[in-house]
């Protein structure tokens, strides 16, 4: 873009990163208490009438997520500030990312189910805005919408699930809910909550939106994928394990869905040539692994999953950012465009190798520890050990090959790049991913620091403490054997990668894709909507009036038939004066029906209204009568003005259909009125106002006192509606005027 050429963002662009860093430090101060298993609560009243509180709890689980959100957030914000330093939209990007980070923090810290849900939806909306950041691009808009619809629908299910849980438990505080495993509605709750978690964390078959969400700028993708958005579903599954977990359904659902997601995703990851897309698919694989681990139930499975959250966040963020470095420094993300860059971009190379090694699960990186734990967990799972272990080995071997693809391919062989002189970008960009990559190594070498936190997290999730097990060397055991097997298969896969990718590309055509199903459903929805709009909204006043009156007639008659009141009899002994008024009204009605002249019709309509006003006067409802009379005058004026613009009136011939509708509705209303009279009057409310209007509101006119004092809020609302209606009428009339000119 031309106008961005000369733009250079000021130092303010580092402020969000600094805020995140400060928050990170603040959260670090909670490490000792959380590791010791003591949660810290912050509670404010929000909607006390519904038992909803703004309740927040910092325990080991939420603390780890908060640290990831703020820590990786600080790095991604710094990186984004530099990556887009010459882009005028940087301010908007940083604002959106900050809003997203705030929503994510509220989500993981919330202890109140409703607070959590609100934050959950906020992350959906802010990530929608972030994915669709390049909103000029059709593709970005489409992908953002897809992410919004899929996660939004899941969000609705989640809301239902959480409200159900809250009303069964009698509290919305998650930490106060017991286990629902024996409740009769357990399956419903589980289904609804898992629907929310699976869509958010892109589990099969809702996985397709996540690679699509790659339309976001690189630093955003890094943030969404490593630390935040997609892990929200995993977080919630972990958070609700004490309430919903431990049953057969839970274990099997999570294991199967996680395993399928994991394997499907790792195959498709290898198919990609765009490194960013490839990393997106491996994120899916990671999410599948996490779900499977949380479903495993045993100490090792859960511990492995929770460790893997950290492991994955560290290497995924640094790899994403490293791909961004390649993109910026060498001009491309396509794996086939890049090779031999290790001398030109040594820092990027170092980061990619360190993070890639962790992703591959090589010792002594923290990735190895995570993988060992999950293998151990897989062997102790409450479902089928062989199944889980096989799936894990396949996925991890594919992951090993993918890690090689991103960490080795671009850096070895003949030097090749899109840019003439590829070089490492500035320190603002590489320092963050370098820290993350080194952390992966450091935590692997000295896992003791993690031990207490992971143990405390497992306790939060499983409700019982276990022995600390986060260490590099567990001795020669089955898990180690599986690791060696993984490396062997992974090495072969990496070696045969070009062939594998060719065959995957061939197969891709034949494999049914849930993104296609999504498109079909969405198109069907659009078609139905436009068909409905075309059919119902034909733009003719007569159709709308007919529909309205038919509906009204049906409702009134239904009320008469299903109601249980007595119908009052018409009193023939009423004063003659009353009968005269009725006769005038009837005469006016007949005139309206049969006249061919508009003037006569309008005047007669006024006659009907005035007659009714007189009836109000007879029954001492002076206020109502005055309103009726004045409104009647205005209606006549308005109708007269409007009629000037209308085409000449018809012949006045009776239209049978409309006559029937009128007769049915009119008779219905008449019967309804008689039924109301037959029901007898309850004077409680009247008596209250009669007694209190003067002493409390200083007014003798009860009607007016009700309007402006006792029920003034209603009046205020009505007045606001009148103003809005006025604005709408003006807009409609002005639009018509423009067309006519």
């Amino acid at each position, binding site marked *: 873009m031309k106008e961005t050429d000369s733009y250079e963002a000021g130092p303010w662009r580092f402020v969000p990163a600094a805020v995140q860093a400060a928050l990170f430090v603040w959260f670090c101060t909670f490490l000792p208490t959380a590791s010791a298993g003591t949660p810290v609560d912050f509670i404010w009243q929000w909607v006390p009438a519904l038992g909803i509180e703004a309740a927040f709890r910092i325990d080991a689980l939420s603390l780890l997520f908060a640290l990831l959100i703020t820590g990786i957030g600080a790095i991604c914000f710094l990186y984004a500030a530099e990556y887009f330093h010459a882009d005028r939209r940087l301010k908007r990007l940083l604002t959106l990312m900050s809003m997203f980070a705030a929503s994510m923090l509220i989500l993981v810290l919330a202890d109140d189910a409703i607070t959590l849900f609100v934050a959950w939806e906020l992350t959906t909306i802010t990530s929608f805005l972030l994915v669709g950041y390049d909103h000029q691009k059709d593709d970005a808009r489409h992908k953002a919408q897809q992410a919004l619809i899929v996660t939004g629908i899941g969000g609705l299910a989640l809301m239902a699930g959480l409200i159900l849980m809250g009303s069964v438990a009698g509290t919305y505080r998650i930490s106060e809910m017991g286990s629902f495993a024996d409740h009769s509605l357990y399956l419903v709750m589980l289904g609804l909550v898992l629907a929310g978690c699976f869509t958010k964390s892109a589990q099969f078959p809702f996985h397709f939106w996540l690679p699509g969400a790659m339309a976001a700028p690189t630093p955003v993708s890094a943030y969404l994928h490593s630390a935040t958005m997609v892990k929200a579903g995993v977080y919630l599954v972990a958070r609700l394990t004490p309430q919903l977990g431990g049953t057969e359904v839970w274990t099997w659902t999570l294991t199967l869905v996680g395993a399928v997601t994991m394997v499907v995703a790792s195959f498709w990851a290898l198919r990609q040539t765009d490194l960013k897309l490839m990393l997106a698919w491996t994120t899916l694989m990671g999410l599948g692994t996490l779900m499977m681990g949380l479903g495993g139930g045993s100490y090792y499975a859960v511990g492995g999953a929770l460790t893997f959250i950290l492991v994955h966040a560290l290497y995924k963020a640094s790899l994403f950012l490293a791909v961004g470095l390649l993109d910026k420094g060498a001009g491309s993300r396509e794996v086939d465009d890049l090779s031999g860059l290790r001398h030109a971009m040594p820092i990027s190379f170092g980061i990619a190798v360190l993070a890639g090694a962790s992703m591959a699960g090589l010792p002594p990186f923290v990735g190895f520890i995570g993988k060992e734990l999950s293998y151990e967990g897989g062997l102790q799972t409450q479902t089928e050990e062989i199944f889980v272990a096989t799936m894990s080995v396949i996925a991890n071997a594919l992951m090993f090959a993918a890690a090689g693809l991103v960490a080795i391919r671009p850096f070895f062989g003949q030097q090749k790049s899109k840019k003439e002189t590829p070089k490492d970008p500035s320190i603002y960009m590489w320092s963050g991913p370098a820290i993350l990559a080194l952390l992966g190594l450091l935590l692997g070498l000295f896992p003791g620091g993690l031990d207490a936190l992971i143990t405390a997290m497992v306790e939060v999730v499983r409700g019982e403490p276990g022995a600390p097990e986060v260490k590099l060397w567990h001795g020669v055991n089955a898990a180690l054997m599986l690791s060696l097997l993984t490396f062997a298969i992974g090495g072969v896969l990496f070696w045969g990668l070009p062939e594998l990718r060719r065959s995957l590309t061939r197969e891709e055509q034949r494999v049914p894709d849930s993104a296609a199903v999504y498109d079909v459903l969405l198109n069907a929805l659009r078609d139905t909507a436009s068909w409905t709009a075309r059919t119902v909204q034909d733009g003719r006043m007569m159709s709308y009036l007919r529909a309205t009156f038919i509906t009204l007639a049906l409702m009134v008659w239904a009320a008469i038939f299903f109601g249980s009141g007595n119908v009052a009899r018409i009193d023939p002994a009423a004063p003659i004066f009353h009968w005269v008024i009725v006769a005038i009204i009837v005469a006016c009605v007949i005139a309206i029906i049969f006249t061919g002249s508009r003037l006569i019709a309008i005047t007669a309509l006024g006659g009907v209204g005035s007659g009714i006003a007189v009836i109000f006067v007879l029954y001492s409802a002076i206020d109502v009568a005055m309103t009726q009379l004045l409104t009647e005058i205005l209606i006549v004026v308005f109708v007269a003005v409007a009629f000037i613009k209308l085409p000449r009136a018809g012949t006045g011939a009776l239209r049978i259909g409309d006559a029937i509708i009128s007769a049915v509705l009119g008779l219905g209303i008449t019967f309804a009125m008689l039924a109301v009279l037959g029901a007898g009057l309850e004077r409680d409310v009247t008596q209250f106002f009669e007694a209190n209007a003067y002493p409390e509101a200083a007014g*003798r*006119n009860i009607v007016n006192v009700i309007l*402006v*004092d006792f029920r003034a809020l209603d009046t205020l609302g009505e007045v606001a509606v009148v*103003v809005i209606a*006025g604005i709408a009428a003006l807009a409609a009339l002005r639009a018509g005027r423009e067309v006519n000119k």
Partner: protein
Amino acid sequence: MNSIILNTATRVLVPVFIIVALMTLWRGHNDPGGGFIGGLLAAICVALYEKTFGVDEARRWLRLSPMMIAGLGLTAAIAGGLWGAVVNGAFLSGVWPFYASVDGSWEGLPVGSILLFDTGVFLVVVGVVSAILFALEEAGIPEDREEEDGVPQDREEGA
């Protein structure tokens, strides 16, 4: 319309209408009337004036644009509510600074937040009704018809 009878009658009737409308607004708290009915009366007065002298003359006569009047009304109603919120701690609760209960009967000048609220309702009704009426008059009047009716051509807003 160029009717001498209507012209003359309007000149006489309009002030009377306005006074009656304001009286209706004022007495509404104790007798039939109030902001809504008063507003309707005033709106009829505006309609009468508009039908006699035309839209543009009516706009000039009102000085403020109708939707501005409605907006002021809404503001006044909310202000009346906020007054109660500030003094009594409850939104829309009545405040009577010059009017108080002495031995069960109220004495003093009945001016307060309730009257302000009712005036707001009054203004909203006048504003919105006039706005729609004016817009309806101006919407798609065929050019020839306009001259026929003697309505001035020089519109403020134009097309």
